[in-house]
């Protein structure tokens, strides 16, 4: 096979190959992430050890990504919960702790989960309120850094000048604030705060 000079080779920015958002990233952000709260509920309901739930979500996401890289699932909601169920079965088999029968089968899952989640019905006003509530729940310093970055559009250096704190300290507050905000906007942040 001859290589034509105008073959569709990507000659753009070398970093773009690694960095370009695949369709999978876009699909994941749009279709899967909004289901995170429902997924956590499902896992909490069907898994005895609640402290495992966050890790289970991560493993479900890995499986979703692996599957989607081959082919984007047509019904994300059904696919997500089937994946979660299968993961629990695998785990249970390995740990030999719970009877697999305790889990719903994909058919009943399908029916139970067919109703659209609240995320889909969120309207702009609710979204703003939710964002504001999430912001209010952040620790004071984290919130201040996030507000200056997100609302005021300041850089890290400008924030450190504004807050009168060392750059490393600001970086710490901002990073923690972003992580906490992300948890609040997608699942439910563990109420016990981890420790």
């Amino acid at each position, binding site marked *: 096979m001859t290589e034509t000079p105008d073959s569709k080779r990507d000659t753009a920015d070398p970093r773009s190959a690694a960095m370009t958002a695949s369709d999978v990233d876009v699909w994941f952000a749009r279709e899967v992430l909004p289901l995170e709260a429902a997924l956590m509920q499902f896992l909490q309901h069907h898994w005895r050890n609640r402290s495992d739930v966050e890790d289970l*979500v991560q493993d479900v996401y890995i499986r979703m990504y692996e599957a989607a890289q081959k082919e984007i699932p047509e019904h994300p909601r059904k696919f997500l919960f089937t994946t979660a169920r299968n993961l629990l079965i695998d785990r249970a088999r390995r740990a030999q702790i719970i009877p697999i029968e305790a889990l719903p089968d994909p058919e009943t899952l399908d029916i139970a989960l067919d109703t659209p989640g609240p995320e889909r019905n969120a309207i702009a006003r609710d979204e703003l309120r939710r964002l504001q509530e999430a912001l*209010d729940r952040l620790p004071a310093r984290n919130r201040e850094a996030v507000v200056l970055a997100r609302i005021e559009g300041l850089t890290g250096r400008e924030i450190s000048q504004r807050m009168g704190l060392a750059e490393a300290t600001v970086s710490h507050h901002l990073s923690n604030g972003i992580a906490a905000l992300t948890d609040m906007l997608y699942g439910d942040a563990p109420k016990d705060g981890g420790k």
Partner: protein
Amino acid sequence: MSDLSAREVKAAAADWFERRNFWNWTAENESEFAGWLNASLAHRAAYVRVEAAWKRAERLTVMKSSLHPQTARVPQSSRSRVWFFGAAAAVAATIVAAIGATSLWPTAEPETQTYATMVGGRETLALTDGTKIDLNTDTQLRTQITARERKVWLDKGEAYFQVKHDAAHPFIVIAGTHRITDLGTKFVIRRDAAQIEVSLVEGRAQVDAINSKTNAPSVEMMPGDVVVASANRIETLKRPVATLSQDLSWRQGLLVFKRTTLGEAANQFNRYNREKLIVDRSTAQLKIGGTFQSDNISDFAEVAREVLGVRIQRHGEQTEISHQ
């Protein structure tokens, strides 16, 4: 399964995102980041999740108008503030589109910031290039300041521009159907549904139609010129510069009237207040003068009652002026 706990991966993702978007970032940092990102699908999912959350939070930028530069420390009463701005914010939220942080996937889109004031609001922006913009009541604009050009879109309302002159980087304002190019100037643009009005206080500027079907020529403005432009019409009026400066009294929160009809005065007050001033037909042509706080309708009504002998009635959110 990932080697790290989900909690650790999430923290790392937020960390990368934060360092990548808010601090100096080198090519070396980027390749280090790419290494982390591609090391595990768990990393990738966590990073996409942080980025998506930050994008969602972009909607909070509508609150910007409530944060004064000198009080930018996070207000203690941020909750009540949002409820206060809630109605305006909800509306604005549907139209705001700002990209506050660089995306995971590089795009050619430069960074855009959105600024908005609510009815009665007033805000001064100091842009990084040294330009100052005063936003009047109920105004929204977007800025895009890059190394190559300086661009502002006036989506609605009124703004006064004091442009830091830089011949190599023209300052361009897009207001609906027209483009205003600064040549080192102070000017004010007011945009409503039907037309824009550009008043030049100092320097020089040029106004063009963006999609000119009529091949309308550019208008070169001199100080004192007021260009009124709509989709299919453009005209230039002359006014004393002193009058134009007086028109800028809103920057101090004042309305200045000189033999102004009550009808027009009511229009002015109603731009700045939720509470409305209603003037009935029998008194709309009466004239009044003076300087008033733009947010104080009752003060104005009281003066009108004393000077013009009109009747003032208050009904909830409305103040009505009628014949005695």
